[in-house]
């Protein structure tokens, strides 16, 4: 149950209205990426590498082209050449279609378009690729070993911000430092350290990537896809295909989950190139196997953590080394992980080293608070270990060391107002924590986690209809009810009923630049833009009223949905009345709002997990679970709870069963939803939620994005519960039944 103490001061915000897109989504009418149809549509399929690392000696697709029904085939040769050798564009193109080498199983090699998907698939068999196999590098330890096969022969390691001449599989090594780490440890009475490893996992959205592209003869390209960000897609298509953004329109369709995984594009450029050759619109829908093997999961790797404390519980030093798999191209979330690893704790002496490591696995992408869960799996267990050793309640211990406003993060910036302490307090007071957990093989674990709100650009416009309703035009794709939460902010600002706001999500030609739905930013930034657009409308309406009434502009006030004037108490008009007169008083009104907020706050979340381990089979059953999170201000509490529950469910799956299971040949063996084992309804308990509200002062309504931090604490909370249930500390994910049994049998 939600428990919001603050007295209600809003009319719309904080209520739970139905979402505007709801009816279409419960009746099957909503059009998702794969549902798109168009005359002349043909179907594409992609040939993918069966090897984790190999040189492509030749590709021959003559036979594929001869198959009846096949219309076009494309390979990397159809991508623009890269004369200026821009490494990052080279990498982007390389991941779309492999040029000289394949770098992971599932790496795209060629695209085929045919009159139906079965024929396109048959044609893939007719493409002959000659490979020279290279040895594969499958994890960070192996990759960081200087004798390992080098994946990118022409790239060099960046270290401490400088390019070196070292050619290895480490793309970057960086460091954040604060105070004097040695002295910090010298002052400690107790030091606990441990190396905590995680493995690659997938976002697991239920809708596979789906996109249709039409490249017209006039050189313009339209893409209809399911995406977290149509504008970033447009930019990326422009880079990869080397055509100006003005020639590209991306039309976002409904999206069936993303969690970060639908920020990058994969088959869109291939569909575009096929369309260019074929002259037809080309639709490509990934199979589930492709989704696992060829899109961006989140990395495995390790987080080593060492923390020193005084006997009274004060932390004196915190040190960490994080090495994450980037996948086949640079860009793991180790940077973010290193900023989150100690985010919750105040300490003057900190040292953090991070490594971005190339391996022969798919290029990683964002996944809900990218990097933070991997880091917290280390930190939150070490913190738990210390609190156990010192005999201090784990919540109290965290409270003693919790960061406050003004404390510094390891990379320098000061923390703004945040809700960590309130989250801890709510955890402590929660019904679950107040209840005693009794019985053998049972344990209770808690943990906290942090994630940023990234800000970034958003634009909205609002037009006023003569019936007093408004149209809200936005560019943020709606993955979990954001149409509602953005419309609610517009309604609040305009002081009109929620039902009077009709939101539309439009294409890249129809609204100002709007960044991804991700980074816990949509309700914050697009909501902010909607608020600004609403203010713009309100101000224009005030002006219109003043003109109609012939009173000074600044005498008109708008309150509780009524315009009135100080100049004459008789003058009064509702929003609706004024709207009905726009036509004859100067024409319609359109407001706009655009922002690119900086210095946005973040969100802390906590989890409490009670579980029981079957000591015979090693299976863990979650008995009770509470998710706590600072939402700043919960615009639509149901969807805030939904984020918290969904993030918790993903964290539970990650902790207990999910993994990319590779065999010795670098092949993923469990690339199906049956064998990947995401939680089913029968695997999860009811997930209690407690929303904490410590407003972010940089947002007009105090919103904090809640999309991500909630996945961070469940994983260490489960590990901590397992420690308390079994007496054993778990250093590796997943903590699945075989791992539990082998752990329980250790030191017997």
């Amino acid at each position, binding site marked *: 149950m939600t428990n919001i103490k603050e007295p209600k001061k809003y009319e719309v915000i904080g209520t739970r209205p139905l979402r505007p897109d709801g009816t279409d989504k419960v009746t099957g009418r909503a059009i998702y990426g794969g549902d798109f149809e168009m005359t002349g549509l043909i179907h594409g399929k992609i040939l993918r590498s069966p090897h984790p690392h190999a040189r492509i000696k030749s590709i021959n697709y003559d036979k594929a082209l001869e198959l009846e029904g096949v219309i076009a085939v494309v390979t990397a040769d159809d991508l623009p050449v890269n004369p200026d050798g821009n490494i990052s564009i080279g990498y982007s193109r390389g991941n779309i279609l492999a040029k000289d080498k394949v770098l992971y199983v599932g790496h795209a090699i060629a695209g085929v378009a045919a009159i139906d998907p*079965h024929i396109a*698939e*048959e044609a893939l068999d007719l493409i002959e690729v000659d490979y020279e196999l290279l040895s594969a590098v499958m994890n960070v330890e192996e990759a960081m070993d200087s004798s390992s096969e080098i994946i990118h022969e022409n790239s060099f390691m960046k270290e401490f911000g400088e390019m070196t001449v070292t050619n290895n599989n480490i793309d970057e090594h960086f460091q954040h430092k604060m105070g004097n780490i040695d002295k910090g440890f010298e002052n400690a009475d107790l030091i606990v350290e441990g190396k905590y490893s995680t493995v690659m996992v997938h976002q697991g959205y239920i809708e596979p990537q789906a996109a249709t592209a039409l490249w017209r003869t006039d050189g313009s390209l339209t893409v209809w896809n399911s995406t977290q960000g149509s504008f970033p897609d447009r930019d990326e298509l422009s880079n990869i295909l080397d055509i100006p953004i003005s020639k590209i329109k991306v039309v976002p369709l409904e999206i069936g989950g993303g969690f970060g995984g639908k920020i990058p594009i994969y088959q869109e450029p291939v569909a575009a190139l096929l369309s260019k050759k074929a002259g037809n619109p080309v639709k490509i829908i990934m199979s589930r196997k492709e989704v696992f093997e060829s899109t961006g999961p989140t990395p495995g790797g390790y987080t080593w953590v060492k923390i020193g404390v005084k006997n009274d519980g004060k932390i004196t030093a915190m040190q960490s080394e994080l090495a994450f798999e980037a996948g086949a191209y640079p860009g793991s979330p180790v940077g973010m992980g290193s900023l989150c690893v100690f985010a919750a704790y105040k300490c003057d002496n900190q040292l953090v080293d991070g490594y971005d490591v190339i391996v022969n696995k798919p290029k990683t992408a964002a996944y809900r608070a990218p990097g933070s869960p991997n880091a917290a799996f280390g930190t939150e267990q070490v913190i738990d270990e210390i609190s156990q050793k010192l005999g201090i309640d784990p919540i109290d211990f965290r409270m003693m060391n919790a960061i406050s406003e003004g404390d510094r993060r390891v990379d320098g910036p000061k923390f703004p107002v945040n809700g960590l302490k309130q989250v801890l307090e709510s955890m402590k007071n929660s019904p679950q924590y107040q209840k005693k957990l009794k019985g053998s093989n049972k344990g209770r674990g808690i943990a906290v986690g942090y994630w940023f709100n990234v800000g970034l650009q958003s634009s909205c416009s609002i037009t006023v209809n003569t019936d007093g309703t408004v149209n809200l035009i936005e560019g943020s794709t709606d993955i979990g009810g954001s149409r509602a939460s953005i419309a609610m902010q517009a309604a609040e600002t305009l002081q009109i009923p929620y039902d009077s706001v009709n939101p539309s999500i439009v294409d890249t030609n129809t609204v100002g630049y709007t960044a991804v739905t991700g980074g816990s930013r949509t309700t914050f930034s697009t909501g902010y833009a909607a608020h600004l657009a609403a203010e713009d409308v309100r101000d224009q309406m005030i002006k219109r009223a003043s003109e109609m009434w012939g009173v000074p502009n600044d005498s008109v006030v708008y309150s509780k949905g009524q315009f009135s004037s100080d100049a004459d108490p008789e003058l009064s008009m509702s929003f609706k009345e004024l709207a009905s007169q726009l036509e004859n008083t100067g024409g319609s009104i359109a407001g706009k709002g655009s922002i690119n907020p900086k210095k946005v706050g973040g969100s802390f979340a906590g989890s409490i997990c009670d579980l029981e381990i079957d000591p*015979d*089979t*090693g*299976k863990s059953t979650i008995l009770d679970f509470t998710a706590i999170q600072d939402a700043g201000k919960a615009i639509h509490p149901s969807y805030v709870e939904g984020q918290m529950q969904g993030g918790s469910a993903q964290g539970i799956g990650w902790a*207990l*069963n999910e993994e990319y*299971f590779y065999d010795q040949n670098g092949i993923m*063996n*469990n690339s199906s939803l*049956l*064998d990947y*084992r995401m*939680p*089913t309804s*029968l*695997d999860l308990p009811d997930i209690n939620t407690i929303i904490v509200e410590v407003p972010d002062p940089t947002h007009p309504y105090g919103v904090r994005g809640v999309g991500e931090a909630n996945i961070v604490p469940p994983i260490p909370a489960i590990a901590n519960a397992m420690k308390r249930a079994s007496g054993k500390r778990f250093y590796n994910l997943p903590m*699945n*039944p*075989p791992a539990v*049994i*082998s752990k329980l049998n250790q030191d017997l």
Partner: protein
Amino acid sequence: MKYVDYERPTSLKSALDILSEKGDVTKIMAGGTDILVKLRVRSEQPDLLMDSKEIPELNELSFNHDTGLTIGAAVPLYKLYADADVKKYYPALVDSTTIIGGIPIQGRATVGGNLCNSAPSADSIPTLIVLGATASIQSSGKLREVPVSEFCTGPGSNVLKSNEMLVTINVPAPADNSAAHYMRFIPRNEMDIAVVGVGSYVKLNASGDKFESVNVSLASVAPTPLNVTEISKFLSGKDVNDENIEKAGQLAKEASKPISDMRGTAEYRQHLCSVLTKRSINKSIERIKGA
């Protein structure tokens, strides 16, 4: 999926004719929950898919106190586990069939398909084995009976010839003082494939303190469902007590020959053999006592 033709014969004779003519390029489809997946990943590429669901003989589901239970090869699981006689006399079959896939899979999948697919992990086969079931196999002009314990010959392979089809599975009538049980271990609670599965059948003496016979069969620990004959040898005539049941678990563990794969390590599977065998035997005993 490669192009495939489809036929839906409505008599056993026409089905067998099809098989004798082109059985080597034909695959039979009952519920399709295995075969369609195999066609899609192209591990099977028949020219013809023959739907067996409209053949009357394959839809028989009948029980008789003398001859036992007849399960047509195309009877979907949901019909089987909802059948009053099955519930009453063969609860182990309910154990097995209510955990195969989820509700929508059970609306289509069959025990016949589970058997003919011959996966080492198949959840119904250990139960059929411990119950002493036989398979009625027919080709044009020839009928043969094969004990289910001898049906599977390797992962995905069995004794069926290309011109033959499974018509029914026949399970003997239950004996007094006997009961069977099936359980498996999976990391999730549904929608998962057995890491280890154990079917047990226990017959006690009239006073219920001695084992008369015990059959145990294991899933997912060998290339075929494994019949652990050592356990029956050991337990027959012995007292019903924890020590003997513990020993049975040990025997199951020793008989198992698992591999390590994404579903579990060999070591872990062996460990589970002993845990689940004990649990399953105890459950069978509980069923006898509860009756």
